[in-house]
């Protein structure tokens, strides 16, 4: 058993490494450098960075109270709520995307938002909406498990020492959950950088308008510009690598899935 399992592990390691290295080394360095200065790629990097950072911040802001409620309070319909809140986790992003498209495109709500100047469909705002929708369950799950693992008695003591409820949360529970929060933020951000299906559905794939890195990869592969596609892919691989290292560094105990 030992020999077989070690052999399989080794073979898998080589296959994965070889595949990814093959992609990174596909274009010679000068060509890669040239691709990176291409305005389309630069636009995609910038758009991806801006939308992913904003969507991560929104995810954190919403997930903190939600995860806290799920971890600490008992309320009617908690099981259903938990299920609904984490459903997008297992939902194919394309499905989430089409649901969003219908919601913002065909309902009175969506039209009202559009009239008010918050056009979501086929706009960069749509990218943020799609990323938040798809990624917030990860943030909620990670934070919920971080909050659950903190004994509520820390807060009780803080309250007897003079804290309000909010004060006890901000001064004790949140700092104690900081590793989970950081890991969750990094994971959410990296998933936002790589989000494709939902973004494609909601924001479309318009060159130099809603063109994030994955969309750039998709558009360039469709038009046969392999070098640009590889450049986008290389950046995405680097981001994944950074994420993995960061999560390992922040907390080995955080369960992503």
């Amino acid at each position, binding site marked *: 058993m030992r020999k077989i399992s070690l052999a399989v592990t080794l073979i898998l390691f080589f296959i994965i490494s070889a595949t990814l290295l093959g992609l990174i080394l596909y274009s010679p360095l000068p060509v890669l450098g040239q691709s990176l200065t291409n305005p389309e790629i630069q636009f995609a990097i910038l758009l991806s960075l801006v939308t992913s950072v904003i969507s991560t911040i929104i995810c954190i802001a919403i997930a903190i109270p939600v995860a806290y409620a799920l971890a600490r309070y008992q309320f009617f319909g908690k099981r259903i709520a938990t299920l609904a809140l984490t459903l997008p986790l297992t939902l194919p992003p394309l499905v989430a995307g089409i649901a969003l498209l219908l919601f913002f495109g065909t309902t009175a709500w969506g039209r009202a938002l559009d009239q008010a100047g918050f056009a979501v469909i086929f706009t960069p705002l749509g990218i943020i909406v799609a990323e938040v929708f798809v990624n917030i369950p990860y943030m909620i799950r990670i934070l919920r498990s971080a909050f659950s693992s903190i004994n509520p*008695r820390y807060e*009780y*003591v803080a*309250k*007897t*020492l*003079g804290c309000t409820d909010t*004060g006890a949360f901000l001064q*004790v529970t949140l*700092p104690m959950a900081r590793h989970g929060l950081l890991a969750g933020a990094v994971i959410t951000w990296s998933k936002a950088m790589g989000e494709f299906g939902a973004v494609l559905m909601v924001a479309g794939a318009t060159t130099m308008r809603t063109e994030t890195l994955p969309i750039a990869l998709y558009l360039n592969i469709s038009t046969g510009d392999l070098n640009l596609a590889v450049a986008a892919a290389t950046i995405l691989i680097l981001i994944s690598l950074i994420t993995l290292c960061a999560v390992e560094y922040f907390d080995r105990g955080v369960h992503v899935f």
Partner: protein
Amino acid sequence: MLRIESLSITLGEFSVCNVLLEIQPGEYFIILGPTGAGKTVLLETIAGIHMPESGRILLGDNEITSTEPRLRNIGMVYQDYMLFPHLTVEDNIAFGLRQRKNSPDNHYALVEEMCSLLEISHLMKRYPGTLSGGEQQRVALARALVIKPEILLLDEPMSALDGRTRERMRVELSRIRKLTGTTIIQITHHFDDVFALADRIAIMREGRIIQTGETSEVFLHPSDTFIAEFLGIGNIIRGTSSNAGNIIQITTRNGTAFFAASDVIGDVVATLHAEDVILSTAPFSSSARNSVLGTVTEVIPSGSTVRVILDVGFLLTALLTRESCRELYLEPGSRVYATFKASAVHVIPVTSQQ
């Protein structure tokens, strides 16, 4: 004075039911009870963490039943100390002061004073994770005491400590109490804590306070069998009592009888401390009213003492030193006389529940 009136609260599987307690200023009050009796819930409700379903809590002349915990001025120390792991010892202790709007200089002086009182000044820059159990305990006490609480609540504060540290902590607690005059309410299941520290105790079972009183009073006169068994008195004998002059005679189910100094007539439970039973190979004349012949059924050594179980018609436990046991050649089957005073027997009337 802290007064708790008909307090009830249910929290998951724990409940507190119709509790009435009165704790005097400066008193060291201990609540004893088996696990799951609702002791922690009671303490947390006094601290204001949980809202009671009914009843009132009064501190002095003020009703504090629905006052926020932060405004009650009641400190709390848990079994696992709950030191904030992301703060240094110094910041942990200063935590309560920072919530109040004093000047930072004042903070530092108060924290230092408290640290030197508890002899933890050398730990101030360290994080709680690096401290021993006893050290964490001191930090937790300092953190609770630095805000000068009117009442300090201790939830099994020493159960995570080893024997010697416990003893030192007991001395420490009694010293702190003398120095600060703080009223202390402690939960424990260690009788040593009770004998060493408590002015008065309450016994709690299934959410109810079933007996309150001075420590020696409760141990000598438990009000029912549960308390007697829980306090580990040694002999709990059921029987029926009848008048026998100034005292009573208790007859067990199979007919054996003995005397007790009491006036309770009817179905009773008699308790007798194992150390009050004297064993001898021959009868001897003494002031003790009870002397019965029995057969040794078991000899159980425990530390420096030996528990000898006799069949005298009912089972009787006697506590002897190892020397006495050896000199009497006691082993299962030995015939010995058991002698005990009628006044050593404590009689509890059997209520309908039992």
